[in-house]
């Protein structure tokens, strides 16, 4: 016997909406312009589905960036009806409008149509050294961390680098060099990690003219974040750490290393030999 799942009304065309999409072709246009497309909407259809419908049935030259279609790769962030959202996570029927206006993310350079150049996001992320920094020897086991220590930064690890927050941020709208909510939240994510010792190393980037003090807590980043990262919270907590540092000094205490693991020690030896060998060559 086959088990049939019946989703009532799923797949039926419910209504027709107009997609007003901002188009820009770097080879033809000097400025972006809007084009309109009529899209039949079925239950369950997302804005990304709508864009792909246009691409398949009306205008194949329409460009957008997407990959996973399930809100996890962070490729498809765009401005839908005035607000930054993931196209693949936005139900057309839930927007409850007959006109769907789609713009590429703001505050980035534009490559084509709905495709922003996210290199600013990635470079800023890189500049805050988003990894655990230690000044002791390579570990021979895990750094030990208590569950409650993990809770101090766990929520900020959810970031999928979609870049929506930078597009919503009013500081970003006028300051090209601002680090932005994503990078600042990740800086806090590592500084608040009990295994990290990199506070001092990150300080000059964070405490700079275009660093953490440029935030005005407008909260727009947190409003649009599709993963609930609440970058605005991380930024204010980061500022708290920097203030504490300037008044009383802020010291990170390194998390202890666990019981030595023979396999890790062996592995390190092999690695060292390999490095020596390659250095000889």
């Amino acid at each position, binding site marked *: 016997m086959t088990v049939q799942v019946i989703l009532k009304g799923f797949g039926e065309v419910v209504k027709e909406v107009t997609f007003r999409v901002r188009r*820009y072709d*770097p*080879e033809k246009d000097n*400025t*972006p312009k809007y084009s309109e497309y009529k899209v039949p909407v079925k239950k369950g259809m997302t804005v990304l589905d709508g864009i792909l419908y246009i691409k398949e049935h009306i205008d194949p030259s329409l460009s957008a960036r997407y990959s996973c279609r399930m809100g996890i790769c962070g490729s498809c962030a765009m401005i839908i*009806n*005035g*607000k930054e959202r993931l196209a693949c996570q936005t139900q057309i029927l839930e927007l409850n409008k007959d006109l769907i206006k789609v713009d*590429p*993310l*703001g*505050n*980035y*350079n*534009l*490559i084509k149509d709905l495709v*922003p*150049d996210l290199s600013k996001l990635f470079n800023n992320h890189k500049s805050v050294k988003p990894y655990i920094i230690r000044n002791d020897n390579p570990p021979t086991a895990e750094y030990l961390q208590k569950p409650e220590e993990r*809770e*101090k*930064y*766990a*929520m*900020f690890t*959810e970031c999928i680098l979609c870049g929506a927050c930078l*597009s*919503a941020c*009013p500081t*970003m*709208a*006028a300051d*090209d060099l601002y680090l932005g909510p994503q990078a600042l939240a990740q800086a806090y994510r590592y500084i*608040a990690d009990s295994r990290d010792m990199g506070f001092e190393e990150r300080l000059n980037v964070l405490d700079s003219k275009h660093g953490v003090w440029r*935030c*005005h*807590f*407008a*909260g*727009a980043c*947190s*409003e*649009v*974040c*599709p*993963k*609930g*990262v*609440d970058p*605005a*919270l*991380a930024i*204010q*907590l*980061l*500022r*708290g*750490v920097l*203030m504490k540092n300037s008044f009383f000094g802020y010291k990170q205490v390194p998390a202890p290393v666990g019981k030595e693991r023979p396999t890790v020690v062996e592995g390190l030896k092999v690695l060292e030999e390999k490095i020596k060998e390659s250095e000889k060559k």
Partner: protein
Amino acid sequence: MMLIDNKKGWISWFNPIKYGMDRWLFALHRLTGIFIGLYLIAHIFETSNILKGPLTWNNLMVFLDWPFGVHLGPYILSILLLAVVFHGFNGLRLTIVENGLMLTKPYRPDYPYEPKSLKGWNLGLKILTAILMIVIGIIGIVYIFTGVLL
């Protein structure tokens, strides 16, 4: 590859539509900050007229109360009062929360992901600002229009 700049620009500061309450407060804080800054300059210029003697001063006072024959003075002062009260109290709130104080601890986000940094005590301080604005606004505006101190 021809990239074009797609920055929203400073004008977007004053368009808080589509985001939450804090985005409105940001726009208002900036607007009121600029407004009372400009007022301060104008105020210094205005009061410097006392140097030109009592007649000039009195004429200016009448003009500012009745600019171009319309009794706008009290309205302008009322708006100024509300702007200063808002900017001041919201500024105190920002001084607290922008230093990481009175905010929620990191938490586990749950769909539909309402940012808790804007809620809790932070929301409480926003409500307090609104209450103070209403109370001081009523007392001040009644005083401006009638000269009666409640």
